């Protein structure tokens, strides 16, 4: 056993010397490899963490939201629909929800105006999200005006700024009273934006949704599970253009690895020839090449994954921020909670180490079966 260990440790010594001899080539490969793992790992850590956080946060979302569709788009829903929905067996309550968007030309941002049913706000007072407060530099007791649908404007007093801790869900929120909301949008009291429905038994959600569609064919029920699944879809790293870009990066990396491994220099060929001439077996030469690949893979993978972890969970994925923010003027400032499991690391391993190993194994084998006589003569 000790002899066996000593043999392979000697091969490791030789492999390291060989790697150090070609440090320029190996370092460049290491840097590219680390970058590929870093990018792929960052995308995976970020999307998985956001997906898991969204599913936990949206556990508190309404069980069912009912919109009215008109001409294929959602439209204010008549309050008269409430009684019909309350009459469906299994429905505990159905309440109107008032919310809408308003564009602030001062900073070019969209705000979400909302009437909270559980918070009583006097007319003329509003609560604003921390994103608005930060961007507009408006704080508690300051004034803020909105343009009404009739062209005039109305000034509101900021009663409070919503806690920065909840910025992920409230960055662009403006909470106001029902009267003020209806005045801004000239929404008649006979209509609401949509309806929220509570169901007695969560297993009956789909049945109730079907009954709503049968009873009110111009409506569209959205159940909580679908809201969560929307974020599963948004943050699915296997979907969207992210996959295309990452696959292109991986392909480029595999081509680079193949080129690096197959393009044996004259020195390397002579080295292999000498090794075989002094009695090294083909399996030993393959072991050296395999060790080279494994060492480069392991260190690149470890460094890449550590950098990706730091980037996402310590620096809030700062490099991805431009893509995430897009054209948004208001963007929540929040800390991403690390939801990392061995599955993600295993997937990352198979997406990076396996393609590299596959790309280098054939050139390694070809190098190992080289005829020492012909190499040393050439």
């Amino acid at each position, binding site marked *: 056993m000790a*002899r066996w260990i*000593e*043999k392979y440790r*000697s091969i*490791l*010594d030789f492999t*390291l010397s060989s790697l150090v001899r070609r440090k320029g080539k190996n370092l460049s490969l290491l840097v590219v490899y680390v970058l590929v793992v870093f990018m792929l790992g960052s995308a995976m850590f970020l999307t998985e963490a956001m997906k898991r*956080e969204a599913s*936990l*946060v*949206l*556990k*508190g*979302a309404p069980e069912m939201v009912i*919109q009215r*569709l008109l001409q*294929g*788009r*959602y439209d204010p829903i008549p309050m008269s629909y409430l009684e019909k929905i309350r009459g469906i067996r299994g429905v505990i309550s159905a309440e109107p929800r008032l919310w809408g968007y308003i564009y602030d030309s001062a900073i070019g*941002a*969209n705000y*979400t105006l909302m009437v*909270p*049913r559980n*918070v009583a706000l006097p007319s003329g007072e509003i609560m604003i*999200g921390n*994103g608005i407060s930060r961007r507009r530099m408006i704080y508690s007791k300051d004034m803020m005006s909105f343009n009404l649908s009739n062209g005039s404007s109305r000034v509101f007093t900021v009663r409070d700024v*919503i806690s920065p*801790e909840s910025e*992920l*869900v409230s*960055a*662009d*929120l403006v909470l106001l009273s029902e009267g003020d909301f209806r005045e801004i949008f000239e929404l008649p009291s006979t209509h609401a934006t949509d309806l*929220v429905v509570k169901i007695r038994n969560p297993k009956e959600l789909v049945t109730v*949704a079907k009954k709503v*569609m049968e009873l009110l064919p111009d409506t569209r029920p*959205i159940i909580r599970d*679908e809201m969560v*699944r*929307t*974020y599963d*879809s*948004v943050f699915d790293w296997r*979907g*969207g*253009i*992210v996959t295309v870009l990452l696959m292109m990066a991986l392909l480029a990396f595999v081509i680079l690895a193949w080129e690096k491994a197959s393009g044996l220099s004259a020195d390397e060929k002579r080295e292999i020839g000498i090794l075989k001439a002094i009695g090294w077996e083909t399996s*030993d030469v393959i072991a050296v090449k395999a060790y080279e690949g494994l060492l480069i893979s392991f260190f690149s993978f*470890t460094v890449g*994954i*550590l950098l990706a972890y730091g980037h996402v969970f310590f620096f809030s994925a700062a490099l991805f921020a431009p*893509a*995430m923010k*897009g*054209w948004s*003027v*208001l963007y929540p400032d929040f800390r991403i909670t*690390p939801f990392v499991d061995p599955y993600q*690391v295993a997937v990352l391993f198979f997406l990076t180490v396996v393609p590299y190993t596959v790309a280098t194994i054939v050139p390694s084998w070809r190098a190992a079966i080289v005829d020492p006589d012909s190499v040393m003569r050439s």
Partner: protein
Amino acid sequence: MNRQIPPKKNGGSRFPARKSRPCLFLLGAGVLLLGLIFTHAHVRRHSDISSIHRLATVVEKLELTDLALFTEARYTRHPSQADLYSAFQDHPTSLEHFPMGSIAAPSAALRRLHGKVD
């Protein structure tokens, strides 16, 4: 192939130190650091879970349906509430032009539900 370890002279090696020693140390350190990722993630998740629950309470209290992540357009602000024609909001033939639209895939669940309604 099997190198004979030379006898030590004055307590030191006749040859330079073996390269595999620091390499094996680094391999061990790498495995340890990878393990630390899971430990750190676990600890921070544990400390963050109360603030996530508080967020869920805000969502419940205000009856919110979406995260305020993409505020660039109304249908990106509330993707779970957007209608089927989000990509064609501004014109019947206009494709999605917001950057978020290139990151996000359409929700299969919403499409299925729409299939029954339309």
